[in-house]
């Protein structure tokens, strides 16, 4: 009993130390640093394409690195690979389990993955010899739903789960290489750093964690949100993290200063953030909300500079293509829209 009490005291003392160390480098704020620049002018994006074909809510989408193809997952039990320019369906993959919550496109363009309430991450080979798309691997070990997955390469993928862990898998052998444990609540979302050395996870314990993939360790933990973190992404230079939460705000945390720099909130926004994506320069932050809209924020000034209104139900997913040319939104209304 005595030892437990001692450890608790040490934990509290360390938390105070971290708070103090963060304050010690807080010689300014992002607002002050950005005081001299003007807010971005009103951003008005138009729907250029509507991708029609899913028969139920869309839960996830992910761009291919070629900025042309993208994959979407719907609870109609299908994964669809789209040519976003022609709106043609390149592949329509029937899933064993229709309770899908996430999907991902491998950087090579050869594989896609998905998973959900089946607790598994299924990998599909798009470039099979006979032209048919088949399940290549079923990665099973999570004891909770699969909330997100992202490929590092054709041989490695990272998953986040309702079982509070994230896992790095060897796709070839179908085994877990590393289990990243530490979150005290369901892991809801993950994003990989531009240099592929780190990933960040957002969870229902209201924190975001930065993980070193090869060291298999958690390097930093960021708090401040007052509810579940549903969406997470890296600022394009890899030095900051953006989170979106059920508390109706998005936050930007700088990794090198180890603290929150700014919160994106508005008294008129009272519903949760479901998804987010920065534009390629990082200046714009596009965030999807439960109220069917996407708000566009000036990331440096924390002011709303635009709205994408066009869906008839919750925007569940959003992504900006690698070349920055377009933003894709997916909705519970079963449609995907391409905007620029």
């Amino acid at each position, binding site marked *: 009993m005595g030892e*437990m009490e001692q*450890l608790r005291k*040490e*934990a509290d003392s*360390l*938390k105070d*130390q*971290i708070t103090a*160390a*963060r304050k*010690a*480098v*807080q*010689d*300014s*704020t*992002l607002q*002050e*640093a*950005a005081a001299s*620049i003007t807010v*971005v002018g009103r*951003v008005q*994006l138009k729907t*250029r*394409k509507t991708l029609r074909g899913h028969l139920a809510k869309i839960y996830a989408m992910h761009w291919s690195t070629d900025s*042309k193809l993208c994959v979407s997952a719907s609870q109609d039990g299908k994964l669809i690979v789209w040519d*976003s*320019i022609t709106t043609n369906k390149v592949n329509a993959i029937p899933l064993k389990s229709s309770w899908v919550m996430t999907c991902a496109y491998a950087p090579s363009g050869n594989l896609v993955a998905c998973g959900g309430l089946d607790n598994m991450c299924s990998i599909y080979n798009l470039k099979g010899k006979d032209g048919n798309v088949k399940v290549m691997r079923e990665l099973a070990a999570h004891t909770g739903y699969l909330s997100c997955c992202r490929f590092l390469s054709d041989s490695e993928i990272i998953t986040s789960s309702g079982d509070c862990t994230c896992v790095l898998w060897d796709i070839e052998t179908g085994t877990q290489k590393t289990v990243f444990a*530490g979150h005290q609540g369901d892991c809801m979302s993950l994003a990989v750093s531009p240099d592929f050395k780190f990933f960040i996870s957002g969870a229902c314990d209201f924190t975001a964690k930065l993980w070193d993939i090869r060291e298999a360790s*958690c*390097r*930093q*933990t960021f708090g401040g949100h007052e509810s579940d973190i549903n969406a997470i992404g890296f*600022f*394009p*230079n890899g*030095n*900051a993290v953006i989170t979106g939460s059920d508390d109706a705000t998005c936050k930007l945390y*700088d990794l*090198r*200063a*180890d*603290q929150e*720099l700014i919160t994106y909130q508005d008294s008129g926004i009272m519903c949760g953030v479901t998804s987010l994506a920065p*534009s*390629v*320069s*990082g*200046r*714009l932050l596009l965030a999807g909300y439960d109220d069917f809209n996407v708000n566009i924020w000036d*990331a*440096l000034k924390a002011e709303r500079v635009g709205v994408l209104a066009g869906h008839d139900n919750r925007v569940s997913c959003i992504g*900006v293509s690698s*070349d*920055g*040319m*377009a*933003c894709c939104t997916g909705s519970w209304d079963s449609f995907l829209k391409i905007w*620029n």
Partner: protein
Amino acid sequence: MSGSSNLVAMKKVVQQLRFEASINRVKVSQAAADLQQFCMQNALQDPLLTGVSSSTNPFRPQKVCSFL
């Protein structure tokens, strides 16, 4: 009895906090300036920010005029 496993878990929490407390931190003024600089340097290469003309927009087919 989960007493000893609670102890093991707590030791891990303390170990992790020790690690997180020990990292080097950069001043916010520096971090903020670097973020701002990145945005500025890449602004012109950000089509959603600058806008895309229809002649360079892959998602907006150009209307073709033909002489009849």
